[in-house]
């Protein structure tokens, strides 16, 4: 439990993309600002900073969460994975390829969040229908593509993984 006056810095220890990190942070620093500014991992985007757009999604202990709605100190002891981490360990290579081939990004602002949600869908496995994919993407805004291509790309990656491409 922590009572946190705004001014003091607090220690936080966590793993980010598999690497142990210890820092002092202001208690109201969001995890999004922490990874972007303190750790220079700028793949995670911040759009609305109120949980609406999904550009800031990261994995916290394996589950997608909005990094704009988690304070860095709340991630103490947690394992965080950003889109950089997923990319480096090759976890979303097929998904990224499908996004590229299907032109599922234009400006790319929403893409990190889309990839994190897409990864969560792929991890669940099976072959969810398009309705389910859209439902899972309901917290991810894209202002460019109109979603069709994104759903296509995720569907393609799902099919490939299930061996029925």
């Amino acid at each position, binding site marked *: *439990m*922590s*009572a*946190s*006056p*705004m001014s003091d810095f607090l220690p936080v220890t966590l793993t980010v993309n598999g690497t142990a990190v210890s820092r002092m942070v202001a*208690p*109201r620093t*969001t995890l999004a600002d922490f990874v972007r500014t303190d750790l220079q991992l700028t793949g995670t985007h911040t759009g609305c*900073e*109120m*949980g609406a757009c*999904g550009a800031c*999604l990261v994995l*916290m202990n394996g*589950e*997608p*969460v*909005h990094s*704009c*709605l*988690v*304070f860095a100190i*709340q991630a103490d002891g947690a394992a965080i994975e950003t889109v950089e981490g997923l990319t480096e360990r090759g976890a979303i290579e097929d998904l990224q390829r499908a996004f590229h081939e299907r032109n599922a990004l234009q400006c790319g602002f929403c893409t990190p969040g889309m990839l994190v*949600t897409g990864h*969560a869908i792929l991890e669940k496995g099976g072959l969810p229908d398009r309705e389910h994919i*859209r*439902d*899972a993407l*309901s*917290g991810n805004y894209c202002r460019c593509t109109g979603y069709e291509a994104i759903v296509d790309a995720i569907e393609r990656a799902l099919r490939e993984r299930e061996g029925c491409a």
Partner: protein
Amino acid sequence: MEEARAAFLAVDGDASYISGGQSLVPALAMRLQAPAVLVDLSGIADLRGVELQGETLRIGALTRHADALTHPLIARHAPLLNAAAPFVAHPAIRNRGTLGGSVSLADPASEFPAMMLAMGAQMEIFGEDGFRRVPADDYFIDLYQTALEPGDILTALYVPSVGPHHRWAFDELARRRGDYAMVGAGILAHMDGALVESARIALFSVGSTPVRAPGAEAALAGRLLDAKTIADAQRALDDDLDPPDDEHIPAAMRRHLARVLLGRLLQRLGETP
């Protein structure tokens, strides 16, 4: 828990508890709230866990929205929460948001607070005089105002377990999946075949708090669930509601939507064996 209360009270109420942060952090980001101190409840073990105690399911306040979707005890004993969960926000928010946070905040457009009413749940609160339990019917007072006093901690939700004669239905009308509903409702009915012995109906997004529908409930009690009964309940619902007139949804439209929704849910109750 005493420690959390002490931390809260030490700053003369210029504090907020934080559980999942999925409502509080946006409020801070928009500068709607600016407490000097945040007291994080998420490490308190007593606020965790889901367990059956006799005929009652104890749901710790920190139980996450996502658990309402997946926890077998919730699905079995408090199926209305399970039915409502897919409609609450989006997957990533459900991974952090807590049932206790939702019921503490008591947003009148929220699903879970209304289901507390429909299920006849009791809120367990830790405050100045230790623990107390408040029935849902006495808990919701006004807009964002509940039986929680400053410094009080909502510790658990006590939900009467459904039995073999219970039937339930939940639905909401929203513009987009995950958006707050224009109107939503849950029903828990005690039935003997097609005979409704009693029913609890709770609606949300129809006023400043979640509301019960005593008129519609009375129109159902002791009657066979047929077309006439459903029509009577729909008619009675009109007197149960006093929806606000806002620029997006006029009161008359909310009344209409509520009526349609109630009809649909009762139809469904009749169909499920």
